[in-house]
């Protein structure tokens, strides 16, 4: 008898142990050691960023007796020059404020998303961290995990330094939880040399021209498009942009407010158009399993002619190229082609911004530091290395890269600015959009099924 009980008990214990690795989403222990390991290992940059001298003047040296404060800051700028810029700014700030220690954690995009979720679920947000605003930020704000910085923004006209559209992405129900760093639009980055090789004189302006150019490129033996569909969001841009071109603002607004649905005709039609594109097999070999970093390498090594991506692409191509120079003059940009007969204005843009939000436990010093890194001088420095399309007034002068100027003008010309679906809507819907569109890319879902999947989750999440 006891033998049996022991056997039973040991079976249960083994099963419990074996499962414990994955059965415990409830106790997400904040992983301290991971923070340390993600900390930038490179020494402080030898060259300070370009323009911070004026900013230094603003920062008054503080009194010695102030208590020591640590500001934790998570950003996703893994490219060397961008990482160095942030580290340099933190070092300067710490030099001016001996009582403040800024602890930087640098994470790659996908790793960041994973890790921040865990931190939020454990109720332990960093003081300042990357955010795209919109639906994801709203979830955090509803749960009380972010700090309301509206009062700080109103003080001394800080709020007025930002362009209102970009700042608006970081507000929810009239309160601000963060500030933007950049705002831009998604468009096609293309390799001018490869286009010329294929004999294409001007970038396409309509969907049918676009499809023709793809065939021309293929005929010339050039892979037309680089895509990291394993990460899903790069491919979702295609479907979302098609929906913007076909249905315009009205279709999205109707579906979002639940007066319409994501099974409405424009969203199905977007899938049909996407199928037309996929049928031409325009992507590099293995695109369904590739990631955004893979996509960068394909573009940077000139193995594909086009890439539908946001304003951060040139900086990423630079970092992904062997000589860190990127494509240089070969790189061009054109807006997403118009779809014949679509209701959307061809100037409308899909895009979004990057910024930083403030965690609920942040000290006032964190907000002060945020102000420091959002200064016009900082923005100019960011624009100069192609990190940001600036959102602070007066920082446009830093935007020397002609490509980024194009993006900025493209975004500014848009009558309707569609925020990425996975930011405009709650994360659950965004996740389903990404998953469903991947099904269309893989040919396992029809446009109708894709739309129905999105609609199903929208019914659950949007009220």
């Amino acid at each position, binding site marked *: 008898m006891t033998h049996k009980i022991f056997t039973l008990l040991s079976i249960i214990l083994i*099963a419990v142990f074996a499962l*414990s690795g994955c059965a415990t*989403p409830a106790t997400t222990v904040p992983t301290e050691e991971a923070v340390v390991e993600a900390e930038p290992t490179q020494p402080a940059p030898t060259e300070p960023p370009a323009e911070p001298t004026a900013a230094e003047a603003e920062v008054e040296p503080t009194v010695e007796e102030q208590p020591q404060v640590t500001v934790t800051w998570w950003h996703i700028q893994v490219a060397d020059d961008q990482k160095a810029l942030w580290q340099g700014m933190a070092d300067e700030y710490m030099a001016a404020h001996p009582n403040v220690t800024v602890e930087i954690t640098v994470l790659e995009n996908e790793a960041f998303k994973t890790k921040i979720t865990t931190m*939020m679920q454990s109720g332990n947000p960093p003081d300042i961290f990357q955010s795209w605003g919109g639906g994801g930020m709203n979830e955090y704000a*509803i749960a009380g995990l972010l700090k309301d910085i509206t009062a700080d923004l109103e003080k001394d006209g800080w709020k007025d330094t930002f362009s209102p559209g970009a700042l608006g992405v970081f507000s929810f129900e009239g309160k601000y939880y963060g500030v933007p760093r950049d705002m831009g639009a998604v468009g096609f980055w293309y390799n001018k040399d490869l286009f010329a090789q294929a004999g294409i004189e001007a970038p396409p302006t309509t969907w049918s021209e676009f499809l023709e150019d793809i065939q021309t490129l293929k005929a010339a033996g050039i892979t037309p498009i680089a895509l990291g569909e394993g990460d899903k969001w790069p491919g979702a841009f295609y479907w979302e942009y098609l929906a913007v071109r076909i249905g315009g603002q009205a279709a999205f607004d109707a579906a979002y407010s639940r007066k319409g649905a994501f099974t409405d005709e424009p969203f199905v039609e977007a899938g049909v158009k996407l199928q037309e594109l996929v049928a031409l097999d325009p992507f590099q070999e*293995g695109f369904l399993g590739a990631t955004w970093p893979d996509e960068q390498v394909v573009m940077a090594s000139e193995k594909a002619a086009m890439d539908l991506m946001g304003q951060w692409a040139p900086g990423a191509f630079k970092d992904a190229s062997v000589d860190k120079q990127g494509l240089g003059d070969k790189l061009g940009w054109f807006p997403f082609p118009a779809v014949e007969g679509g209701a959307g204005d061809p100037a409308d843009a899909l895009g979004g911004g990057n910024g930083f939000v403030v965690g609920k436990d942040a000290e006032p010093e964190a907000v002060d530091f945020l102000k420091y890194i959002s200064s016009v001088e900082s923005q100019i420095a960011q624009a100069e290395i192609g990190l940001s399309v600036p959102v602070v007034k007066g920082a446009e002068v830093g935007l020397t890269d002609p490509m980024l100027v194009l993006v900025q003008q493209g975004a500014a010309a848009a009558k309707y600015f569609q925020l990425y679906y996975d930011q405009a809507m709650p994360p659950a819907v965004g996740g389903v959009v990404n998953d469903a569109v991947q099904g269309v890319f893989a040919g396992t879902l029809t446009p109708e099924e894709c739309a129905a999947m999105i609609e199903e989750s929208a019914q659950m999440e949007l009220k």
Partner: protein
Amino acid sequence: MYEASPGETILPSRQEVRSSRGLQDKLIIFLFLLPSTVIFLVFVVYPIFHSVYYSFFNWKGLGPAVDFIALDNYKRILTDRVFLIAVKNNLIIVFLSLLLQLPLSLGLAILVGRNLPGRAFFRSIFFMPYVFSEVITAIMWLGLFNPDPDRGFINALLILIPGVEPFPWLADTRTVLLCVFVVLSWKYFGFHMLLYITGLQNIPLDVEEAARIDGANRYQLLFNITIPLLSSTIRTSVYMSVLGSLQQFILVWIMTHGGPVNASEVMSTYMYRFGFVRFYLGYGSAVAIVMFLICLAFSLVYQRLTPQQDYLGGI
């Protein structure tokens, strides 16, 4: 009635000594067990009950769980197409492991456990993949499988064959699960091989010698002597392989994220996607509980059905 014996007066005191020493032993055992028991309860048992609790809620993981929905999460899991795909993929991995990986390990164990020249060398080579961390293994194989022949070794070899095009191993819905299985086998066959080697060393040589004297050939020796005597090791190995296959997460997540389009989705990646990507932590907890029940059911049935007879103990 009661009859006194001469030794009676001494006996109780002896027993007293013995029992107090026994008590002391028990106390020491208890003290030694205490830390691990506490850790086990706090970090394993408590979270499981917590997960059960959360699995009854529509909960996003932020703030307290308030939206009680009883068994709705479970209903959704059992009717969700993707979850059923994940279960199917788990079962494919389980069966492939049992059919290919374990026989391979056994074969290698018999080779390197006994009479192959240089067996110590091969033994450590074969065991090496098991020593690598799963993350490193996954990243290494990601590189090997890279569809671009300039970057992926397998495709670089493939295109040396005339007329063969590079193949996107992990990006094709038809091959991705097999590729994952190859990596899983590569990683774990050494572990099972080691189990079998240990088992083989417990088989007394004289049994085999006796069989040989009786005229058994190598084939008879293997199937009538060696494998039956290994049965308890095989039982353990099968048990661990099945549970490991059911719970595999890290390799799959890093290599494919369960994709493309769920082609390599397994239960654990499904759970992770809902819990941590889509923020449905209540639902994710329910998936975890379903996984737990599947594993538990397997363990109970397996222990009940497999023969408990230990041939080796009979020798």
